[in-house]
């Protein structure tokens, strides 16, 4: 596993260096001042590589903020081991490390962590002494966990959609609407290439088969902060994504935006995600509907349904849920999307 990751990094590094030479003088500094016309000349693969490189660099930069290891005390307030206190490293240890100290059961079952009353990803580093609790799928009130699971499945679907179409057709991801679980399907709004306006997918499950190629290389979902709006443009998000990032940055007191990555795919979303994609057991992309909006572009809503390993369903029940998820999920409170500048 480690070898596979190393190989990818090396390959990415070599290709990136070739890319910079092609782009001309400036190298890493030039990225800060890259204007949008140059961006559109890059293919989606190169964009993905650049994004990953920037993600890694930002991660290293954040790690280097704490050169000396400082210890923090994390109190466990759950029911299983009352009164436990973990001595963890500041900005290095994650709730997953705390669970590792307790038991394998805790590692496998916990989906999110409740740190000082706030919902955290399992792999998000802890920054100060706090109280921690683990949330699972089978709690008394798994609402947050369900929402996070739906969000993660939507993000996986977005990744799959990006890869499913051939390189010459552009796929623009808009956003994943926060749908309640009871509606039966998670969705992602996408604008496909103009040439695909008349195309309707005859068999949407073929897109799901692309999932396998994505899934094979994914180990863990990472996340991290990104300070300030200026640096986010590094990631070459355009259009709706930029609006979402700006909105989130303005909502947050310090202008921090959280990005999540899994495998190659980097995305911004409303809240925390599940720790590993191996949590999804049954996963199916079921339908694609055309949304009726006032804009000129055709927005499509791709829908899917999924169940985690902890809550497997019998195949008959699963078929019924699939049938239901094919119906269009619409709900009140959809944010009106403003027109975006250019496509990527």
């Amino acid at each position, binding site marked *: 596993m480690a070898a596979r990751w190393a190989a990818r990094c090396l390959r990415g590094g070599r290709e990136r260096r070739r890319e910079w030479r092609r782009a001309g003088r400036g190298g890493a500094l030039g990225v800060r001042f890259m204007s949008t016309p140059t961006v559109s000349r890059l293919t989606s693969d190169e964009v993905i590589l650049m994004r990953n490189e920037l993600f890694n660099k930002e991660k290293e930069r954040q790690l280097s903020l704490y050169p000396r290891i400082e210890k923090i005390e994390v109190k466990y307030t759950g029911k299983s081991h009352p009164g436990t206190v973990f001595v963890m490293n500041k900005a290095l240890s994650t709730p997953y490390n705390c669970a590792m100290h307790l038991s394998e059961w805790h590692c496998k079952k916990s989906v999110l962590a409740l740190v000082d009353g706030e919902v955290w990803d399992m792999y998000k580093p802890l920054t100060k002494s706090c109280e921690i609790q683990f949330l699972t*799928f*089978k709690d*008394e*009130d*798994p*609402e947050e*966990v*369900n929402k996070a*699971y739906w969000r993660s499945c939507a993000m996986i679907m977005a990744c799959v959609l990006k890869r499913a179409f051939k390189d010459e057709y552009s796929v623009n991801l808009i956003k994943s609407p926060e749908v309640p*679980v*009871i*509606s*039966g399907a998670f969705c992602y709004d996408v604008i496909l290439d103009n040439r695909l306006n008349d195309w309707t997918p005859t068999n949407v499950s073929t897109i799901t088969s692309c999932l396998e190629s994505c899934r094979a290389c994914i180990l863990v979902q990472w996340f991290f902060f990104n300070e300030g709006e200026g640096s986010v443009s590094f990631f070459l998000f355009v259009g709706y994504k930029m609006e979402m990032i700006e909105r989130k940055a303005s909502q947050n007191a310090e202008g921090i935006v959280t990005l999540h990555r899994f495998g190659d795919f980097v995305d911004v979303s409303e809240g925390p995600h599940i720790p590993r994609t191996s949590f999804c057991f049954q996963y199916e992309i079921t339908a694609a509907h055309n949304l009726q909006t006032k804009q000129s572009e055709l927005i499509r809503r791709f829908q899917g*349904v999924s*169940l*985690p390993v902890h*809550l497997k*369903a019998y195949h008959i*029940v699963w078929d*019924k*849920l699939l049938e*239901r998820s094919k119906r269009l999920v619409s709900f009140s409170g959809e944010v009106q999307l403003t027109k975006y500048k250019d496509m990527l």
Partner: protein
Amino acid sequence: MRLSVVAAISHGRMYRPLGLGPRSRLDLLRNLVTALVRHERIEAPWARADEMRGYAERLIEYAKLGDTNERAMRMANFWLTEKDLIHKLFKVLAPRFQPHPGSYTRLLQIPNRDSLDRAKMAVIELKGNPYPPLIRPQRNTEKTLLNQLLKGYREDMQRAATPEAPKGTLV
């Protein structure tokens, strides 16, 4: 007629012949009652626990009369072989059960004993004991992901099944 068969049938007899004889049976039950008052939760063969249950509850009813009562004191003296428990009975258990009208004990069956006799065992406990509860209340799994999806499915089916009333008919 085989007398052994007649002797074995015991239809309608409300008497359990525990121990070696009537006195032995009372001693047995007395030991169990003492243990129950001391430990507030004991494991015993089901027949003995069931037999002892009535005696224990009546003892507590006597204790509720108060320790100045001569009959209550004589009962407690007979039934509790360890005399420090008489104080516990009158000072701790009687006030605990004062608001309740009856049923101060709980009898629950447990798996058969591991030894050769495979006897039917039970746990008898006084209510309000400080130990963790024997029966855990079942978790409410209504809000798990799968149950929420199925609930949505069920509601959709119900909405599809009930015919929609045409709008504008009701005034």
